[in-house]
């Protein structure tokens, strides 16, 4: 489970060294868009040496590799795909290249005698990948889906707007595919890094649709995103009441029970369990 994932350009020593200073649930070391073509080799060497030096045990380590059909992606995978990282972020994902990456990781893990399985986090950022999102989500290694709103808007030949109507259907399809496969639905970054009110408003809307997390393109965005995607005190207290009442009902053999005057049934119990699970993971209890 994630709430916030922070992008870090892989060719910036100053930013790499601060990777675990902020409270993001995951860091994404970016070898793709954040690195100029002429610096791809330097970024890869720097990230390789950084990962040798810093273990960052308490945080998920994700690497956004270059597009799978580029000459750089094979070098990225050869050097970086190993026990040091948790997840590969796949740009311009389709069902075909997600499967292809999974097969490459099968081979790499075997060659390197790895004990862990590297997960895949595909970026849904084209009309084709939105159409194929259900197939992409069902791949075994995939443990989340990220919406790439900017590239998607380009592919759709529309302007990105504050209201976000142009990506509404894509957000909804990504959420449905994620929930159907019990993986994280991760929203597109909010690109206006100075507009905190806008970030909060859009992230609350995103959570209301069913998103679980959001990527951050600036450390300033982490706190707001964490707060919005965490259960609040009232939600946690209410969930505790439901779980306690449920446990009492099991002891007394009562099938149906109520909390605060409202009948409680299975989906409500499951939601309460999820709230408690999240609160435990993020030390909110």
């Amino acid at each position, binding site marked *: 489970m994630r709430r916030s994932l922070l992008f870090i350009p892989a060719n*910036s*020593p*100053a930013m790499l*060294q601060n990777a675990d200073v902020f409270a993001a649930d995951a860091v994404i070391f970016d070898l793709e868009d954040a690195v100029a073509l002429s610096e791809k*080799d*330097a970024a890869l*060497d*720097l990230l*390789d*040496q*950084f990962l*040798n*030096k*810093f273990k960052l045990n308490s945080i998920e380590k994700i690497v956004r590799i270059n597009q799978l059909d580029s000459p750089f992606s094979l070098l990225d995978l050869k050097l970086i795909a190993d026990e040091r990282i948790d997840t590969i972020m796949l740009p311009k994902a389709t069902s075909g290249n997600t499967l292809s990456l999974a097969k490459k990781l099968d081979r790499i893990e075997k060659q390197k005698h790895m004990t862990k399985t590297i997960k895949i986090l595909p970026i849904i950022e084209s009309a084709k990948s939105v159409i194929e999102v259900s197939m992409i989500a069902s791949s075994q290694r995939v443990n989340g889906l990220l919406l790439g709103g900017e590239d998607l808007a380009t592919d759709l030949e529309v302007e990105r707007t504050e209201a976000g109507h142009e990506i509404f259907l894509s957000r909804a399809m990504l959420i449905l595919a994620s929930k159907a496969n019990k993986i994280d639905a991760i929203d597109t970054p909010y690109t206006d890094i100075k507009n905190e009110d806008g970030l909060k408003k859009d992230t609350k809307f995103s959570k209301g649709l069913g998103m679980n997390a959001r990527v951050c393109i600036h450390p300033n965005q982490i706190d707001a995103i964490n707060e919005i995607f965490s259960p609040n005190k009232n939600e946690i207290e209410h969930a505790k009441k439901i779980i306690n009442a449920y446990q009492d009902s099991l002891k007394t053999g009562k099938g149906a029970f109520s909390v605060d005057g409202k009948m409680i049934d299975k989906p409500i119990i499951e939601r309460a369990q999820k709230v408690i699970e999240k609160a435990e993971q993020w030390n909110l209890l």
Partner: protein
Amino acid sequence: MKIGSAGTFESNDCLITVKKHKKIKIDIKSIVIEQFGEQIEQVIRATLKELKIENIYVACNDKGALDYTIKARLLTAIKRMGE
């Protein structure tokens, strides 16, 4: 003569330039030369030893880079030189 270069003048980084030479020669400029000059040289020498390179000139213009950054920039510069 082939020259390889990697890195930047930004804080926490270093710019490393390499070229062929009759033996190992290292020039270091650093904002922390007093405190870390020797350590920077050790990182460079250790990396060259790892690569079994004995005929190279290395210029390191350091802006407070940690060891891993110095090693990474040196590796990239050497690859760019075509070694």
